[in-house]
C-alpha cells in the first residue's frame, strides 16, 4: 500500500444526468492520510462525486483511479456511509446482523470463491462487528432492532457497518444531516480519531463546521471551485455559493 501516493485520483471527470451536467472537468487528488471535506451548495454534485468514486456511477468522460484501480475493483476496500439509509426502518434485523453484512466482502477479498462464499458468519466476523460497534460507542445497541433506533443511533450503526469492512478509505455523505448539533461534534470527534488509521472523505453542507476538523476542503459546485488547505474565509464561500452567505464562527 505504501507505493500508492495518490489514494484517489480524478482527471477531467464529466458527469450528467440525462444531459444536465452535474460535474464538469473535475480534477481532484486525495493523498494517503487526508481528512478531506467536500463542501458546496445543494445539487452541486457532491453526492454524485462520491458515487463516481464508489463506482456506483460511471463518468461520461474523464478517468477515476481509486487505490490505483478502477473504482469497481477498489470499492471493497472502501467504507461508505450514505446520506439516507437505503433500507426500510421496519426491516426485521438487529443492529449486529446489519453491521455484520459489511463482513461479506471482507472474506471474499482473499477467497477464491469470491462473493459466492456460502454459509454462516464466523467468530472473526462476530468479533469484528462487536469491535466496530464499540468503536462508535454503540455496543449496547447490538441486539436492538434497527426500527427502534433514534436518528443518532442509526447513524452510528451505519458508521459501524462501514468500519467493519476494514476500509482503507472511509467515505461519508452528510453524516450529520439528520441528527442534532451535539451529536454532530461527537461524530466528527470520532472521525478525527479514525483519521489516524484511515483516510476520510466527508461531504457536508456545513462549510464552517467541517473546516475545524478536516485537513483540506474541496468545494464543488458543478466544477471544483476551490481546493484549500488553509482556513475558509468569506471570500471563498462567496466564490462558491455566488452570494453572501451568513457565516457563523464555530469554536472547537
Amino acid at each position, binding site marked *: 500500500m505504501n507505493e500508492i501516493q495518490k489514494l484517489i485520483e480524478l482527471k477531467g471527470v464529466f458527469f450528467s444526468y440525462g444531459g444536465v451536467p452535474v460535474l464538469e472537468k473535475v480534477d481532484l487528488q486525495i493523498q494517503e492520510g487526508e481528512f478531506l471535506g467536500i463542501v458546496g451548495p445543494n445539487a452541486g454534485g457532491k453526492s454524485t462525486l462520491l458515487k463516481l468514486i464508489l463506482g456506483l456511477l460511471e463518468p461520461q468522460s474523464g478517468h477515476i483511479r481509486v487505490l490505483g484501480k478502477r473504482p469497481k475493483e477498489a470499492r471493497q476496500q472502501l467504507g461508505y456511509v450514505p446520506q439516507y439509509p437505503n433500507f426500510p426502518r421496519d426491516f*426485521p434485523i438487529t443492529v449486529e446482523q446489519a453491521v455484520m453484512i459489511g463482513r461479506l466482502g471482507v472474506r471474499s477479498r482473499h477467497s477464491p470463491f469470491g462473493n459466492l462464499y456460502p*454459509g454462516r458468519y464466523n467468530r472473526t466476523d462476530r468479533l469484528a462487528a462487536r469491535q466496530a460497534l464499540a468503536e462508535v460507542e454503540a455496543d449496547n445497541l447490538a441486539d436492538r432492532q434497527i426500527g427502534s433506533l433514534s436518528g443518532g443511533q442509526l447513524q452510528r450503526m451505519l458508521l459501524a457497518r462501514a468500519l467493519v469492512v476494514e476500509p482503507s478509505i472511509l467515505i461519508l455523505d452528510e453524516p450529520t444531516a439528520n441528527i442534532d448539533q451535539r451529536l454532530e461534534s461527537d461524530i466528527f470527534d470520532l472521525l478525527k480519531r479514525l483519521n489516524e488509521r484511515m483516510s476520510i472523505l466527508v461531504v457536508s453542507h456545513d462549510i464552517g463546521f467541517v473546516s475545524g476538523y478536516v485537513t483540506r476542503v474541496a468545494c464543488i459546485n458543478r466544477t471544483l471551485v476551490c481546493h484549500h488547505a488553509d482556513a475558509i474565509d468569506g471570500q471563498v464561500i462567496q466564490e462558491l455559493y455566488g452570494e453572501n452567505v451568513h457565516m457563523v464562527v464555530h469554536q472547537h
Partner: protein
Amino acid sequence: MNEFFAALTQHGFLQSAVVAGLLASIGCGVMGTYVVVKRIAFLAGGIAHSVLGGMGAAVYYGFDPLAGALIAAIISALLIGSVRLQWQAQEDTMIGALWAIGMAVGILFIAKTPGYQTDLMSYLFGNILLVPEKSLWFMAALDALLLIIVGTYHRQFLAVVFDEEFARLRGIPVTFFYLLLLVMVAITVVLLIQVVGLILVLALLTLPAAVAGHYVHSLGRMMLLATLLGSTVSLSGLALSYGPDLPAGPTIILLAGAVYVISALATRAVARRKVRASLPASANRR
C-alpha cells in the same frame, strides 16, 4: 372435523392433499418471508398470473401443465427482474402487462385445445384433492432445492433484500442474487398453484409471512413461523372444507386472511397500549 379425520385414514387422496399442503407451506414460509420484507408482493403476483400462459401452452401441446407452469414462471421472473433492474420507472406497468398477457395467452391456448376441455377452474383456484402422487415428489424436490439454496446463500440474500446498494459495494453480485431470488419465488408459485390455484397464490405467499412478522424479528424465525402458520392454515382449511363440501383453496385463503386481519388488529392494539403505558414512565426517566 371428525368426519375429515375419519376420512383421512381411509382415503389416499386426502393423505396426498395433506402432504401437498405441508410441502407448499415450506415454500410459502421461506420465500414468502423474502417477498414480504422486500415488498415485492405485486411482482410475485405478476409471476403467478403470467404462469397461466405456460400452463395453457403445455396443455395445448400435450405436456405436463406443471412443467409448463414452471418454465413460464421462471421466464416471467427473469423478465420482470431484468426490467426492474434496468428501467426502474416502468416496473409496475410492465408487471401489470405481463400479468394480463400471460393470462390471455393461457386462456387462448386452453380454448383451442382440442377434445376434452381441461378444467380451467382448477388452475385458477387449485384443487388440492386432485394432486397426483407424481406431483408430490415434484413438489418435494422443489422444496429441497429452495432450502438448499437459501441455506447456502442466506447471508447474500439478506444483504440484497436489506440494502441493494450496500450489497453492491461489498462486491456481491446483486443482479445474480436478485434474479435467483425471483426465480425461487417463481418456483414457490408453482408449488402453491397445486394447492390454491394461481389466482390465490399471492395470499398464501404473503399472509403467513406477514403474520409471522408481527411476532418475530429475524428472517430465519419469520421463515419458521410462517411455515408453521402456512401448514396450520392449509390443513385446517382442508379439514373445514371437507364436511360441507366447499372448495379447499378459497377456504384456506379465507382462513389465512382472517388470521392476518385479526393478528394485524391485535398487534396494533398492543402497540398502542404500550405507547400509552410508556408515556408517563419515560417522562420520569429523562
